[in-house]
């Protein structure tokens, strides 16, 4: 019985550690996805001149999960036409925040990009895209560094914490 409890505690805390580590890993991945999405959004806008809603819809089909849902909700909101692009962007960003592992600084960069969306001409827009991309690059670099540093730490800390708890409680 004691052994069972000990196993439970160790498993749970190890799980928590792994979840935290996965969070870090996911963040870099999602940042990369976001970068890719914005690049393709730029391509849509600059080369094929598709409207924003349509472009976002296409982009949402090219990238994996959390980022794609962000773009699809954004394009849906635009197509319904019930609010401005910035409002729709903010709203879908809020839902992205709940479902992704991105941190506030990453979201700020994306929000900044959304503020300029659909307000300026193509050239300005392109500049904006470049700025955002470099910002995201920076975030990604930071995230990957943090991942490298902390991923192992979270994993081992989770396991060791569970071990400590069982040793003390036994």
């Amino acid at each position, binding site marked *: 019985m004691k052994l069972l409890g000990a196993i439970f505690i160790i498993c749970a805390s190890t799980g928590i550690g792994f979840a935290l580590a996965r969070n870090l890993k996911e963040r870099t991945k999602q940042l990369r996805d976001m970068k890719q999405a914005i690049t393709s959004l730029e391509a849509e806008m600059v080369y094929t001149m598709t409207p924003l809603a349509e472009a976002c819809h296409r982009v949402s089909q090219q990238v994996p999960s959390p980022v794609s849902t962000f773009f699809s909700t954004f394009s849906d909101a635009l197509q319904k036409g019930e609010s401005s692009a910035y409002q729709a962007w903010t709203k879908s960003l809020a839902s992205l925040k709940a479902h992704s592992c991105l941190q506030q600084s990453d979201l700020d960069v994306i929000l900044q990009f959304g503020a300029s969306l659909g307000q300026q001409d193509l050239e300005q827009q392109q500049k904006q895209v470049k700025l955002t991309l470099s910002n995201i690059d920076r975030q990604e670099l930071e995230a990957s560094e943090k991942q490298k*540093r902390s991923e192992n730490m979270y994993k081992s800390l989770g396991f*060791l914490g569970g071990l400590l708890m069982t040793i003390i409680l036994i």
Partner: protein
Amino acid sequence: MNYDVNLIFQIAGVGIVVAMIHTVLKQMGKEEIAHWVTLLAFVIVLYMVVNVVDDLFQTIRSVFLFQN
């Protein structure tokens, strides 16, 4: 010798695990947290040891000093 000898292994285990946690946290540059963790574990183990020491003093008192 029916005393809880397992407590020895418990203390040693806590010591080793805390040392590992300390090392990991220190490596990640979170020395403050590492110190807090060590301190906390130390207090817990100290509590156990103090309990046993109290037991010892009571025993000696009842055996040698004729007080109960």
